[in-house]
């Protein structure tokens, strides 16, 4: 009971801070739009895959990109909390470390959820106005996409928190997070199809859990996928579970 209230407390804090710092939502939405319109638009004039325009092709990938970037960087707030004594205030409260971790994950995922919904709505508007063709965003596909995006978010927020719990400085955090993010993103098939990859590249891409997020989401939104959607969901779900377990452990071993 006490732990549930503790989780609520941590969630409340993240949510309040997020809605007060409106620029955070602004930038997290502008960035993917730039990718979609500039990269998608620029290459879209000459490139198309599987019969769909490049801009349409990368829309699911860009959604995943924006989610994994903002989710993992959420972990930096743990480092900032450690720099002042806010972290100690939480650590000394009579709630379990697991509750603390869950509270942070729920908080970070809420931020990302708001971002996801905004991007889906923008996608819907772009589709209705004909800027983005061949994307099917309706109630059902919207809900299933949310499921995919949220599992990815939970996994990446957990990953960010794991890094944050072990780091002393924000610079160190940025370094490690970027080091992980770029391969996760570029080797996920967010920007290219994964059907005919060179033989040296495909094992790396298939080992990347984010590949399955992108594949599943692309299957739902534009009907192109390499794997069964069930398999995609199973992989990303398992990845989320593993990061949650490691994260709980990382929080338990965290010293101030």
């Amino acid at each position: 009971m006490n732990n549930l209230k503790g989780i609520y407390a941590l969630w409340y804090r993240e949510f309040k801070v997020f809605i007060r710092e409106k620029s955070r939502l602004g930038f997290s939405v502008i960035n993917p739009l730039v990718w979609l319109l500039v990269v998608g638009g620029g290459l879209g004039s000459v490139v198309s895959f599987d019969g769909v325009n490049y801009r349409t092709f990368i829309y699911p990938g860009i959604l995943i990109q924006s989610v994994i970037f903002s989710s993992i960087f959420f972990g930096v707030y743990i480092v900032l909390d450690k720099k002042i004594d806010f972290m100690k205030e939480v650590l000394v409260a009579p709630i379990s470390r697991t509750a603390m971790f869950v509270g942070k994950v729920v908080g970070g995922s809420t931020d990302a959820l708001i971002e996801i919904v905004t991007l889906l709505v923008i996608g819907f508007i772009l589709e209705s106005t004909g800027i983005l063709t061949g994307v099917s965003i309706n109630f059902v596909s919207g809900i299933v996409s949310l499921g995919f995006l949220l599992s990815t978010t939970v996994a990446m927020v957990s990953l960010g928190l794991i890094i944050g719990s072990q780091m002393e400085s924000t610079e160190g955090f940025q370094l490690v997070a970027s080091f992980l993010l770029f391969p996760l993103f570029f080797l996920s098939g967010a920007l290219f199809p994964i059907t005919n990859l060179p033989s040296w590249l495909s094992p790396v891409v298939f080992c990347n859990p984010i590949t399955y997020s992108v594949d599943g989401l692309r299957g739902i939104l534009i009907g192109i996928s390499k794997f069964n959607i069930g398999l995609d969901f199973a992989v990303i779900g398992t990845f989320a579970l593993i990061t949650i377990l490691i994260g709980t452990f990382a929080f338990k071993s965290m010293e101030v």
Partner: protein
Amino acid sequence: MNVIDTRNLTKKYKEVTAVDDLTLQIKEGEIFGLLGPNGAGKTTTLLMLTTLRKPTSGTATINNFDIVRQPDKVRKSIGIVFQDPSSDEVLTGYENLKLHRWLYGMPGDLAERRIKEVLELVDLTKRKNDLVKKYSGGMRRRLEIARGLMHHPKVLFLDEPTLGLDPQARGHIWGYIKKLAQEEKITIVITTHYMDEADNLCGRLAIIDEGKIIVSGSPGELKKKFGGDIVRLKAKNLNIGALKKLNYVNKVEKRDDEVSLTVKDTNEHLQEILMLAGKVESVEVHSPTLDDVFIHYTGRTIREGAPEGGWAQKAMAFKTKR
């Protein structure tokens, strides 16, 4: 009754022993001071007592709960105001208190009443709906004191409560600490490296250096142990030999052409001292302060190695980061 009881509490880091075999009793209702220079082991002691760090050996009980075996019960019995800012500045003062309420599982109506009470105690009722980033360093500290009191702890720990505050704000904080000691009837443990602060607030204190308690007692007792007043003389052709022979002079220390004497019953003997000293240029007599006590026991001043930066400076530095 002892509300805090430490037995051979020890914390070793790789090569350093930060807290060395600390045995200490603190009674219910006391304001107890842990004094010492930076790095003396005050904060480590506090972190162990508040269950944030595990002792290497030894243990302690707080409110009869063991800090190693029953950390959750200890946590419910204590409130802490940390050295660095520990409130979220993008939230209002009231919201910070609400967070605390949930973290400590306080039921709603009780919590709201208590929030009102503690806000009044630290005079922040009018500013409760302002964001903490609009608060001054002193106000933020007061908010954190209020928060530490919310869940009716048996013991309130204050880690360097006035570090980095201006003199006026320090005076205010002292006032609040005294007031809450009276009104809330709780035990307060303060760590500080300000001797005047300890003198002003603490009923009893322990001076620690290099992880060990060097001496403890009430400020009055400690000054008495010092053995007299301090007479500082500046004179030409100073006759130290003659001064050393006087049986009411306990200690003679020479620095350049100045000499510092510890003298019993100064009123009766000052005349004689001045006559023997030589051609006196200036003389200064004062009763011993805790600073003198500290130098007496450790051989150095407490200001050597003062903490880096101040609480308020850190608060400012982090304002822009979130």
